Structure formats: structure tokens, C-alpha cells
């Protein structure tokens, strides 16, 4: 496996998909795919002036355009040591609030609510919920209006520039924005009650790590100079690569952005979990009223978190306008001469932590690195999708139920608007699935094999016997479970090669059925993990765990003192033949 930087595909506005692969009683794989082509924006800005960069980078995403604008400007201003005026700072925050109002109201009312009320879309929902649909449209329009007044246009405005702004909005325009915010408050209360009152599906439930910007000063907010993790650690902006190490990994096992070797979540729920206690005013009261520990383990609580953030924005906008108007007039932008430097800008986009890192050499952009929220959420979207699909499968639910549920799990992350409209597909694993996967795993380097099981418990000897046979054939790097104990770990040098555990498994399949599963999936599946976990946690570090797999053969009989049954023996031969290829 290698680290090759950012995945632009993960800018998910547009066309994406999620596919669960079901292998009998196990969901063996969930893949979140992006069907759009790469745009290579980090390469397109190279050699351009900082101001051209600030114009082009936000083109990554229309709905997060102001977040990208604020992030790239923060990065470039940090790189070139430019400090913007307090007035410009406040106006950028107003602009950011506009994007939150627009994006969150679009998502909650138009994309998410029809799911929970049982309509195919918001227009159909209008027949019964005419009032909500109409006022929510006005709310969305209001968010757009703020972006137009502050940044020049709804989408891809250019008024925010390096050093500040092109022009200040007029006092009338800003007072209008403040007045409208106050007028919306009754509907904002209704919004919070509505989304906090929905009975969200109880599946999937699992813990995760939450990550967001640290706004500083014990405040709630949408940018900062540090990354805050729910475990309590903080990282300064320039150290972002320590947090979001992104991997492009072999396709069918999907790509991951991991922290400490594990998936993590960014977005509204991450902010509410990490910072919710800091909320003041009416939003603080609503948080105290509705928030509880179950929010932390269920991604559907992204929705009430969005509602709370809508309220936060509506309370914050009048404060920002007041402070802006109180300040003395001054030039909207600081003039600057480009100078060399490297800078990172952290902001919270509506869908989560957004990181821009830009470098300037001789007045031109010499390096750019952009990490989008959905790239970071991809691993957790797959993980929660997996947990949900497995839970429904265990309950005996059919493909259509699983498909629908995956669809709304993905949508909870608001990965983008178009791909959340409909994207789930179910795929049944083909009989030779394990062979295809094995070929991919072997492409990553020559694997280390570990045979495990109880040699005197019937078919449970399969893993040990296969490892013995391989040793006899002279295959290198083959270990038996017992040797690991004696040896106190593996003596093999770590050069990024994959690990394959050989074992007999019980997945209630026909005896002799072969399955190859990534270790993360094995550990999520209680039928498999109890036996495997003690071994892998002892010998593999978290990074190696990312590249470890279980090759399992369905056992037939597990009787003490008996030999291996014929169907399992045949399967072992098939596996050995494949391994020696």
C-alpha cells in the first residue's frame, strides 16, 4: 500500500454509488464509489497566481463553494503572512453562515425529510407539507441571498479575495439580512423540534471517532487553526497530514482516510458531539433539551445536528452584522505583494472538516493539497453501511430493504446532493469471488500466511493443515498459530506486504465454501471476530491490520478427535492450488 495524496474523486457532488456484496450470511464488502472522473484541480492551479488559485479551487464543489473560498483564502493568507481586517473577517463569517443556511436547509427539508415521511421527493411532499416546503425554500433562498450579497453570486462568487473583499456590501443590504434572520426564528424553532423529534432508525449503531475544527475560545464555530478529535487530541493546522493520512488502496477494497488506523466521521454530528456543550442562547437550550448519548453512535443524528446548526447560524448572523456595522469604515482589502511560503486553511464545510494547503514560490502557486469532507467520511460511510446491511441481513431482511437502508445511511452524511438522491445497489458475490480478491491481494506483495485453528477439532484443523502443507512446499513466510506464541510475535520484516490468516469458519454456508474477507469486516462480525481478534491484535499493528485478510473455509463437522471432512479437504486443495499459482 502506498500514500499518494488526495482523492479528488471524493468530491462527491454528482454521481456516486454504494454497493454491498453479500456472501451467503455475511456482508463481505460495502463499497462507496464515485462515478465521476478526476478533475485534478490541485494540478490545475500550479503555476497560477494566488488570486487565480483562489478563483479556481472553489470550483471543486458548487454547494460548498464558500467553504472552499474561505479555506483557500485562509491557506494563501497564512502562506503569505497576510492578516485581514476584523471587518473582512466578520464578513467572511457572514458569508459562511449563508452557505450553512442554504446547504443545511436544502439537505434537511429536500433531501432527507422525504425519506422519513415516505415521499419520493420534496415536490411530492409539498401536497401534504406545503407550508414546510414553502418556508424551507425561502430559508434556502435566504442563505443564497447572503452569499450573493457577501460574495457576489450564489455559486462561485469572487468578491472574497486574498487580503479581504473586492467591495463591502451596503449597510442596507446587511440590515436586511439581519432583519430576515430575526423574522425566520419561529420557523427555525419548528425546524429544530421537527428534526430532533423524528424517530430515527435504530440501525446502524456503532462508536466512531469524531473530528472537527477547534474554533478556539471555548466557542462553537466553523473554522479554527487546530483539528480537534473526540478523543481529546488536538493538532495544529500544518500537522493535518498526521490526522488524515489518505490511501489509494486496491479498488475493490475501497479507499480510506484513517486516523490511528480507524475510520472517522466529520460533519454536523462531529461538531455537535465535540462542541455541542459550548452552544449558547436558544441553540444551547435546544441542545440541552434534545441531545443525548445515543446521538454519538448513530449517523442518522447528523440530521438533528444540522437543524441545531441552522439555529446557531440564525442566532449568529445578527450578532455578526451588528459588530460589522459598528466598526470604522476601512479599505475592504489589504494590498499585498506575493511572498514565498506554505499555508494551511482549516474550515468546517456544511458536510465537515475541509483542509486546504497551498504553497507559493516566486509569486506562483507551487503546491496544493485539498482534503474534502467526503473523502474523509468515505471509510465511515462504508463501515456504517456495512454494519447496517449485516444487521438487516441477520434480521432476515431482503435485498430491497437493505438497498433502501444503505441509501439513507449514505444520505445521512450529505456526501453531496446529487449522489444522495439514489445510489444503493446489491450485488451477490460470485462463486469465485475469493479467487479474484486473492489475486488482488497478492498484487500488493508476497503475503505472510498464518494458519490458525485447533488441529484436533475436526474441520477446525483446516487452517493449520494448509499452513503446514505450504511450509512443506517451501513457501516463505508461513506461520502456525503455535509458533507465534512460542516466538512472541512474527519474526517477519515489515515491508508493507499483506497478511492472510487461514482458518475454518462458521458462516452457516455449505461446507467447503471459501471466503476471503478484509480484516476490518472480520472484526465487525461477531461470528468471526472472537477467534481472530486475540491473534491479530497481538501480532499486527493498526497499519498492518489495514492490509490483513481472512481466508476462511466453511467447516462441516467440528468433532473432537475426528479428521477433516471430505468437502473441506477438497476446498483446501483448491485453495492450495490457487496459492501456489
Amino acid at each position, binding site marked *: 500500500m502506498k500514500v499518494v495524496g488526495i*482523492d479528488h*474523486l471524493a468530491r462527491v457532488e*454528482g454521481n456516486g454509488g454504494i454497493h454491498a456484496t453479500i456472501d451467503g450470511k455475511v456482508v463481505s464488502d460495502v463499497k462507496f464509489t464515485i462515478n465521476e*472522473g*478526476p478533475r485534478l484541480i490541485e494540478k490545475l492551479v500550479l503555476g497560477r497566481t494566488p488570486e487565480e488559485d483562489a478563483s479556481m479551487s472553489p470550483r471543486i464543489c458548487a454547494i460548498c463553494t464558500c467553504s472552499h473560498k474561505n479555506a483557500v483564502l485562509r491557506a494563501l493568507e497564512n502562506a503569505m503572512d497576510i492578516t485581514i481586517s476584523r471587518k473582512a473577517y466578520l464578513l467572511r463569517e457572514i458569508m459562511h453562515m449563508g452557505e450553512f443556511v442554504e446547504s443545511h436547509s436544502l439537505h434537511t427539508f429536500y433531501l432527507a425529510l422525504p425519506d422519513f415521511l415516505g415521499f*419520493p*421527493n420534496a415536490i411530492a411532499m409539498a401536497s401534504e407539507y406545503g407550508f414546510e416546503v414553502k418556508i424551507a425554500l425561502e430559508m434556502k433562498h435566504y442563505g443564497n441571498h447572503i452569499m450573493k450579497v457577501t460574495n457576489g453570486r450564489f455559486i*462561485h462568487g469572487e468578491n472574497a479575495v486574498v487580503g479581504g473583499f473586492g467591495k463591502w456590501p451596503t449597510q442596507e443590504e446587511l440590515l436586511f439580512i439581519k432583519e430576515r434572520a430575526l423574522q425566520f426564528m419561529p420557523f427555525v424553532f419548528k425546524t429544530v423540534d421537527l428534526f430532533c423529534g423524528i424517530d430515527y432508525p435504530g440501525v446502524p449503531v456503532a462508536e466512531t471517532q469524531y473530528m472537527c475544527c477547534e474554533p478556539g475560545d471555548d466557542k462553537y464555530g466553523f473554522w479554527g487553526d487546530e483539528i480537534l478529535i473526540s478523543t481529546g487530541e488536538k493538532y495544529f493546522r500544518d500537522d493535518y497530514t498526521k490526522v488524515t493520512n489518505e490511501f489509494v488502496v486496491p479498488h475493490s477494497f475501497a479507499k480510506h482516510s484513517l486516523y490511528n488506523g480507524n475510520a472517522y466521521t466529520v460533519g454536523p454530528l462531529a461538531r455537535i458531539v465535540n462542541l455541542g456543550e459550548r452552544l449558547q442562547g436558544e441553540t444551547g437550550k435546544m441542545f440541552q433539551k434534545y441531545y443525548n448519548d445515543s446521538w454519538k453512535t448513530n449517523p442518522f443524528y447528523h440530521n438533528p445536528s444540522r437543524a441545531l446548526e441552522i439555529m446557531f447560524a440564525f442566532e449568529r448572523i445578527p450578532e455578526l452584522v451588528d459588530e460589522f456595522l459598528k466598526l470604522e469604515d476601512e479599505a475592504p482589502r489589504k494590498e499585498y505583494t506575493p511572498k514565498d511560503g506554505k499555508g494551511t486553511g482549516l474550515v468546517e464545510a456544511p458536510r465537515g472538516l475541509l483542509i486546504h494547503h497551498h504553497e507559493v514560490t516566486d509569486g506562483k502557486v507551487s503546491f496544493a493539497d485539498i482534503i474534502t469532507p467526503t473523502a474523509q467520511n468515505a471509510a465511515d460511510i462504508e463501515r456504517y453501511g456495512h454494519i447496517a446491511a449485516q444487521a438487516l441481513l441477520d434480521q432476515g431482511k431482503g435485498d430491497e430493504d437493505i438497498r433502501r437502508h444503505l441509501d439513507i445511511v449514505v444520505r445521512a452524511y450529505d456526501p453531496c446532493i*446529487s449522489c444522495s438522491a*439514489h445510489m444503493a445497489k446489491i450485488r451477490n458475490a460470485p462463486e469465485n469471488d475469493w479467487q479474484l480478491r486473492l489475486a488482488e491481494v497478492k498484487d500488493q506483495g508476497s503475503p505472510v500466511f498464518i494458519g490458525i485453528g485447533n488441529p484436533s477439532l475436526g474441520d477446525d484443523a483446516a487452517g493449520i493443515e494448509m499452513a503446514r502443507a505450504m511450509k512443506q512446499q517451501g513457501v516463505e513466510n508461513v506461520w502456525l498459530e503455535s509458533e507465534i506464541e512460542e516466538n512472541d510475535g512474527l519474526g517477519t520484516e515489515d515491508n508493507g506486504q499483506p497478511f492472510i490468516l487461514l482458518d475454518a469458519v462458521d458462516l452457516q454456508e455449505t461446507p467447503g465454501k471459501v471466503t476471503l474477507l478484509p480484516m476490518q469486516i472480520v472484526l465487525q462480525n461477531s461470528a468471526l471476530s472472537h477467534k481472530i481478534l486475540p491473534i491479530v491484535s497481538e501480532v499486527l499493528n493498526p497499519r498492518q491490520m489495514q492490509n490483513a485478510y481472512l481466508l476462511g473455509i466453511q467447516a462441516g463437522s467440528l468433532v473432537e478427535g475426528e479428521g477433516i471432512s471430505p468437502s473441506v479437504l477438497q476446498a483446501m486443495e483448491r485453495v492450495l492450488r490457487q496459492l501456489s499459482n
Partner: protein
Amino acid sequence: MSDNNKLKIGIYELTGCAGDALLILDCEMELLDIFNAVDIQSFLMAKSDNIDGDLDVALVEGSVSTEREIEELKDIRKRSSIVVAFGLCATVGGIQARFSEEEWTQNLKEVYGDTEMTHTKAVHSKPIDAYINVDFYLPGCPVGKDQFLNFFTRVVQGAPPESYPVPVCVTCKYNENDCLLNKGIPCLGPLTADGCGSVCPNHDVPCYGCWGPAEGANLTSEYHLLQEKGFDIEAIKKRMSNYSGSKFQEFFEQFKNKESK
């Protein structure tokens, strides 16, 4: 037309930022009327009950950047009487179409390494008319709201859309802005198609060219104008190439011709 006598419309997104499709949803006050006036058969961003049948008008956003998109696009063409290139990416390929095939391949490798993507293969980004015939073009990154509503109303009534032959510069003069070029700021208004109402110069910010090259721009006089004002022509070209996509070669051929005269 469908049984209810409404025009059948499909809105499709290829590779881009989804800004043009979002722009339609940004017509909040007109949205319910739009959905009532026509029969929207497919609009992935807004609804889940989509049908891929015959269409009167298809609006296609985004550049063609994967093999699967080539197939999708050809299928849309087959099913539709009118195909509209909707936004800068569809019209000129967008910012992602600037690289030559060679540069693109090199950059793709640097970003993604040797990892093969299985679900679909990436191809060098191109505008949609590289693969199909296009009936109308509506440029802009993203298209303007007024421009879209104007277009929509005319098409619903069976009239051809208006064209926007003038560059941003002309509108900017109508808006009585102080010309940025006089202040030494490199503005692309003279070379860029209008449709935005010169919004950037209205804010004292130079035009970055996001509507793509103007069709009728008088390149000879623009060339001399920029040169007289002391601008570095190479820097202007580089700037202009940002939003000209795959059409910038062609555009600068003309520019160069003027140069040699």
C-alpha cells in the same frame, strides 16, 4: 411530448461541480412553477423517481471524463430531440479540460499512483460536443440564474434561446464601472463571453474568464489594447486558459494570428 402535453425534460450531470444543476434548485421562488410547467423525467440531484425515456430537451452539465460518461452521453443524445450543453464544463470542458492529453496522463499518475479504478476508467476531460451533436450552448461557471430562466421560458414555448454575443466588457461599460485595466489590474472582460452581468468588475474584482471565450470578441483590437496598457501578454494568455478548457488552443491560434499581423 408526454400525455399531459408537457415537455419532457431531463437534467444530467457528468463530471463537474454540480453547480449548474444546483443553480436550477437555487431558483427557489420559481422552482415549483418549473416543476409544474414541464414534465421533469430525470433529475438525480432533486428526485429519486427518475425515468430514462425519450425526451424533448436534455440539459447536460459537466465534462466527459470517464468511459461510462461517454456511453451515458450517447444514450442521452439518442433519446433527446434537443441537447443543451449546460454550463462551462459541458461547453468547453471546464477547468479540467485545460491539460493536453499528455499532461493529463502524467498528472493523473501523480495523484492516483498506479491504482486502477475498476468501476469506470478515467479519460481525458472533453466538452460534450467532442462526442455528440449539441443543439444549444449555455456557458457560465455556473450558468447565470437570469440566463437560465430566460432560456427555460423560451424553450418551453418552442422558441430558440437568445444568444449572448457580447463580451463581459460591454456590459461592464453599461454598468459604468471604472475600468480595472486602467488601474493596471489584468481583467479578462474584453475576451470573455457575457452572461453574468459583469458581476466581478461590478465588485472591483477582475473578470477571471469563467464564461469562456467570447465568440465575437474583436481579438485584434483587444490584443493591441492589452499590449498598449503594458500587460504581459503571456500572463494574460495563461489566465485566459484557466476557463477556456479544450477550446483555448483554438482561441489562442486566433490571438496569435493577430499577433503576427
